[in-house]
């Protein structure tokens, strides 16, 4: 990988600009000139250089049963929805039955993948979607213009638009909205899982991790090489290596920070195994 996608895009854009008469225009308008100049390099961290932490999620598919065996709706989704006053119709972590090649099926939870090369961040025109120093992809709803081009770019369909003003509970109404805790959701902007940035800042594990009765979801820091599901603490890299970890749609090169540990013989599924 000689040249990163961002570098490539930037070079390409500057080349494209040369043909447009834009340089002339931006000199005319002071405000614009300032904006564009600042935008050449986004002030917020975009590469891996400045990372202080690298939050990572590992989901053990051997343990996830979609909560059907306890006869409840998926508890990660339920607790996340409650904990973040997630607007109606959205599921920041979505649990789905996935069909295997052998005809069986298995369960798979899908949070936002917090891609290291996130297409949603690349395309956002105003930097409302951005990387943090801790490896997260967050949305600043007070910046978002609601163009939805990030929803087009996300190959995992993990972004939701706030089509209307959500009905507020008292707690949600009193909360102070920030990219780390986007409550109450702002009409006309985009929402998604933010890896519980508000919790991990305080040293707490994400709500869905503690909410999972099976302990299937692990969360941790790649820099310190540990993850936990709230019951046990295990080394991260070793776990990934020993369990044939994979990432969803790896071939796209988005480098998600969510890893899955297979185990049922995922190609065949639970029923086929029984």
């Amino acid at each position, binding site marked *: 990988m000689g040249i990163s996608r*961002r570098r490539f*895009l*930037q070079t390409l*854009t*500057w080349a*494209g*600009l040369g*043909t*447009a*008469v*834009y340089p002339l*225009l931006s000199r005319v*308008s002071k*405000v*614009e000139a*300032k*904006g*564009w100049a600042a*935008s*050449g390099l*986004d002030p917020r961290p975009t590469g891996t250089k400045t990372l202080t932490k690298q939050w990572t999620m590992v989901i053990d598919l051997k343990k996830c049963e979609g909560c059907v065996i306890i006869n409840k709706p998926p508890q990660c989704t339920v607790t996340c929805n409650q904990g973040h006053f997630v607007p109606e*119709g*959205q599921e920041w972590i*979505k649990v*789905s*039955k996935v*069909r295997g090649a052998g005809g069986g099926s298995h369960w*798979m939870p*899908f949070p936002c993948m917090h891609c290291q090369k996130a*297409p949603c961040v*690349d*395309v*956002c*025109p*105003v*930097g409302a979607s951005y990387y943090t120093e801790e490896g997260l992809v967050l949305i600043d709803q007070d*910046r*978002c*213009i*609601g*163009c*939805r*081009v990030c*929803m*087009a*770019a996300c*190959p*995992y*369909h993990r*972004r*939701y*638009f*706030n*089509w*209307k*003003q959500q009905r507020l509970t008292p707690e949600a109404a009193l909360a102070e909205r920030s990219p780390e805790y986007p409550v109450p959701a702002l*009409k*006309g*902007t985009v929402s998604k899982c933010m890896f519980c940035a508000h919790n991990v800042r305080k040293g707490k594990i994400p709500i869905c991790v503690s909410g999972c009765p099976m302990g299937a979801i692990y969360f941790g820091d790649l820099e310190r090489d540990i993850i936990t599901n709230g019951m046990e603490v295990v080394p991260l890299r070793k776990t990934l290596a020993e369990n044939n970890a994979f990432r969803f749609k790896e071939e*796209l090169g988005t480098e998600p920070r969510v890893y899955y540990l297979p185990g049922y013989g995922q190609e065949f599924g639970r029923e086929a195994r029984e």
Partner: protein
Amino acid sequence: MNSTAERRAEMEAILLAPLVKPSRFYDLGILIMAMFIMWGLYAWSEQLRHGLIVTGMRDQVFWGLYISNVVFFVSLSLTGTFLSAVLRITGNHWQAPVTRLAEVVTGAALLMAATMILVDMGRPERVFYVFIHGRLQSPLIWDVMAVTSYLVGSIIYLYLPMIPDIAICRDRLSPSVSPLRRKVYDILALGWQDSAKQQERLNKLISIMTVLIIPVAVSVHSVTAWIFAMTFRPGWDVTILAPYFVASAFFSGVAAIIIAMTVYRKVFKLEKYITWEHYRKLGWLLLALLLVYAYFSFAELLPGAYKLATHERELLNLLLTGQQAFLFWVSLLGSIVVPAVLICWRRTRTVAGLTVASVLITVTLWIKKSYLLIVPTLQVSLMPFDAPGRYHPTWVEWSLSLAAIAGFMLMVALFFRFFPVIAIWETSRAAGEGG
């Protein structure tokens, strides 16, 4: 010599008449368009109040009619200025009477495209963020830059050849129009006296703008295509998208200009200046572009249809035999087969025939290159939990779309209330050169 002067005088009389007192058709047209716009504004106020929930768009199919209209208006905008620039550069003077019409279509279409983007935004009041927080990595910002450049460029390009005509308005219309309007003509004419020196300077400026505007025109449509092509979605993630956009935009744009020609020829009684010769030449151009378009449409689909990768297959199923099949086949029939027959068959190769072909092309290209570009791709399920997406536009979306078309027509119409449709200066010069 005498006859040239007479011809010029007659031309001025005919062309300046609508500027003083337009026909009744014209007023009626303005009234109808204004009504559509008022209704559209009401729909927009509803949308602003309740949010985009009042549209048929949802999390899976999150773009619909609005973005389709953006693509459509951008494609309309390509041709006007582009066509007139290409013809100017190649020394074709036959087009002189239709260039201004084409260029005004460009300006109005660009303004409408920008308005439609605003309508689609979740938080339109933050639109200026693209200027103060804009990031060059985003294709949307490329589009903002390209559209702004093109709009400014087109306005200059429209204005320059108009200076002598404005001077004519200033000199001839003084007794019949209000003092304010006379003042405006006076300012805009920049003291034009039709001297040899001024003519030389103007010609040089026009030549420079003509060369500059062509790459900008192409860039606008390419960049619009790249907004889609930069994603991982089936049907968008193809390298052919930008050239295909440019080609089909040129195609539908020529059709739109033929329609505009017919309308203004009738309403402003311009049969003497917009002649069958113009129709004939534009008709053959239309046929050539039709063939290019047909080729692109085929070339776009074949590689995907051959390999049938998962998402690609779902998209093709939707288009060829599924939910969108009716629109898909109707659009191919209406944009390729029927117009080709209308242009080629001697009996229908008339002003009426070409106009009908052009209407068909414009409508079906809206379907194929705007609606069917956006919606089916978003209907494809990307993830195991997705069902095929659904989209049913609501009355708000239809109202605003119709209002946008009305707004576009109103802008063009109002422009020609104050400035002559046909470039008097250029046309009389072209006629002089032609003998």
